[in-house]
């Protein structure tokens, strides 16, 4: 058997697994699993309104931040 095939298979599978692992680590760091109740109920509160709300919060943050200069 060609060695390079084994190398390739190992690299690809470990890489794919690593992508999933990093996504998971990012989610933990981001606090997505901090509140299990909220996490489980998330589908109930996930609609167009929530997206709009998130965007408007982002805008508010940006607008207010513009005027800020660290002293």
């Amino acid at each position: 058997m060609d060695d390079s095939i084994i190398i390739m298979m190992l690299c690809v599978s470990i890489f794919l697994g690593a992508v999933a692992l990093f996504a998971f680590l990012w989610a933990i760091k981001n606090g997505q699993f901090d509140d299990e109740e909220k996490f489980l109920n998330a589908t109930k509160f996930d609609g167009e309104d929530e997206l709009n709300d998130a965007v408007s919060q982002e805008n508010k943050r940006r607008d207010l931040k513009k005027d800020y200069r660290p002293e």
Partner: protein
Amino acid sequence: MNLSDNIACSHCNLEFSQSVMIEDGEHFFCCNGCKGVFHLLSDSGLESFYTKAGSTTLTPPTKQYENSSNFNSKAFYSKFVRVNSDGFSEVSLIIEGIHCSACVWLNEKVLHKMDGVIEATINYTNNKAIIVWADSVIKLSEIIDMVRAIGYNAFPYDATLQEAHANKERKEYYLRMAVAIFASMNIMWIAIAQYAGYFTGITQEIKTILNLAEWFLATPVLFYSGWVFFRGSYFGLKNHVVNMDLLVATGASLTYVYSIYITLLEQGEAYFDSVSMIITFVLIGKFLEILSKKNVADTLDILGNHLPSEINIIKEGQIVSCKLTDVLVDDIVVVSSGERVLIDGEIIKGSGSFDESNLTGESEPIYKSVGEHVISGTISIDADIHFRATKDFEHSTLSNLVSLLETAINKKPKIQQMANRLSEHFSTTILALSFVTFIVWWAWPHSFETSLMIGISVIVIACPCALALATPVATLVGLSLGAKKGILFKEAAQLETMAKVDTLVLDKTGTLTLGKPEVLKEHIYEEFDKKLLFSLVKSSKHPVACGIYKYINESNTNQEGIILDEYTQVPACGISAKYMGLELLGGNLKLMQNNNIEVDYSNENTIFYFAIDNRVVAIYELSDTIKSNAKEMVANLKNRGIEIIMLTGDNAHIAQKVATEVGIELYMSEQTPQDKLAYIEKLQEQKRTIVMVGDGVNDILALARADIGIVMGSGSDIAVDIGDVVLLNDSLQSLEDAFKISRTTYQLIKQNLGISLLYNAVTIPLAMAGYIIPLIAAISMSLSSLLVVGNSMRIKIKWTKG
């Protein structure tokens, strides 16, 4: 009128009869508070809250709050408000009144709609919120007012304490475990190829490729996930202790270095799978321990969070607010109804009732007037008073109580867990054995590589995995058994401590007894309409009135209430009312004397007199009753060799009666919270291990100081927070079960440690003789861990069945 006529309030969903509801179009409200919130929500387009909340009932927003402007004071900002890197202000709040996830949604939405609020995140599980806002646009008081306006309440807490630290640590472990488990699983399937090759033949090229892949995967496990062990062994060595961390760190890194050497040399067997497996298993064990650790910080928060930092005093005829710590002796302090007294003093103007349950456990409100002393920590129920401070804040009862509690918590004895003591010796022995093995093999002429490999194999086979898992797995079984029986152990280590307990200290009221007076005897002197008495006691929240209400309700069926006129509660005396020209009086001896009614009946029980038109028609004797299986529990625990002592705030007479009835020989009466604390300390000086059982705020000092504090679930919030074990169903049967479970768990820990030591006793000599190949090392590691887990499961199944 029957129940089906009741309709639910459009806001809070509580059901009331239609006649008392406020009608507003198609909606009905139970109070103006609910109506206000409903309109507020409809106006801001948040009606979908009601569909999200479904049939959850909410608390009607009827509370009146003190002015929120003191949230804007400098003192408050410096204590609770942080400025984050973007220049926004940030505060941690606890939101009161959250019932369901829709409440969380509503609070977040309402706050997001406010100008200047950047972020509002509320945790449903613990009701804690983090709010970020631009202070130039909006003030904190406006944010808090908004939360209050929609029917919730918010108060700040200091999040920089241990709790935040504990959460961070837990998160860090999640990350490290995720990496370790991911890498180990991948290494395992590569290892399968290695082992298959070991038996059926494999070319050196393929072997090297597989080794390189394993090397790549094992590196983050050792240096990222395994970092905790390096850190742990460094701190251990600094304190001259050889701990388990050192064994794991040395074992794993030696194996790692040796495997790299093998890989580069392209001959022999690499051990990368052992490296990652050791780290992963022991890390899981460590994580389980951390998961079941209690944090003290929250408790102190709760005591402190109701303390405003400012207080109103009178200076030159004006009411001004000043810092709590700036109040001097002889300053005049103003307290209005609903406020908490923060400084000890003597009333100079006004009168009213105070709730002293925080300090004495006494549930009855106490009436105080000019000349009497008010104690800090009590809450004014209906009193608007001016009082002269007799002490400054530092020396006031409340401040003393908080600092006493802090010391009590810090002084709580810590019993070192058996596994920790054991692992010290274990680690030293293994490291020494491995070194000796290496020297002997080398001296007996063998090649350096062979000797090193055998030396390392001793460390690897001595797998600390089973040892590291022995205690956490056993305590997890104990915790889950407890949870099933309504016993909540807050920290795993307490199971082990509790198994060693030899003294049980009990509080009387609410622990041995029900804490609610019940009618023992009824003396009727003149026939009267029971409806009158029934209606009189029905609306009172006083425990005696509740006891009589319950008695009449049980002894006579179909009691109906009638409407009484001029219904008044006389503080600390009883109730008076009128019905069709009849004067009704119900209450204690004082009430009778005040109305010039002569009575000559008294004994040690609580007596309730009922008079119509100034003639006593009935007398009820009430007394606190002992819980059903108290006697049995006391006897059973005595058989287990535990000494039982009763401490109570009540007088000697009642204490003796209860003690003899349940069979306790040793008891102390008229104990203040400080006395109870002192008593526990005295027992601890005699090297005793003590369980304190209580339910009230008057027990908290003792609960905090005792080796184990057990609290009845219905006890006061602070007591439940301080306690190490909570009995959710308040029953004394659970108390006995708690002892049983802790002892079983301790047995299990001993068995598990025994298994792992026995395992080592067999495999270490084999390793020293050089009979261990990588496959056997890997299998034995898993097998010993499985044995420990299996043994724990056996106990669990046995308990669940029996």
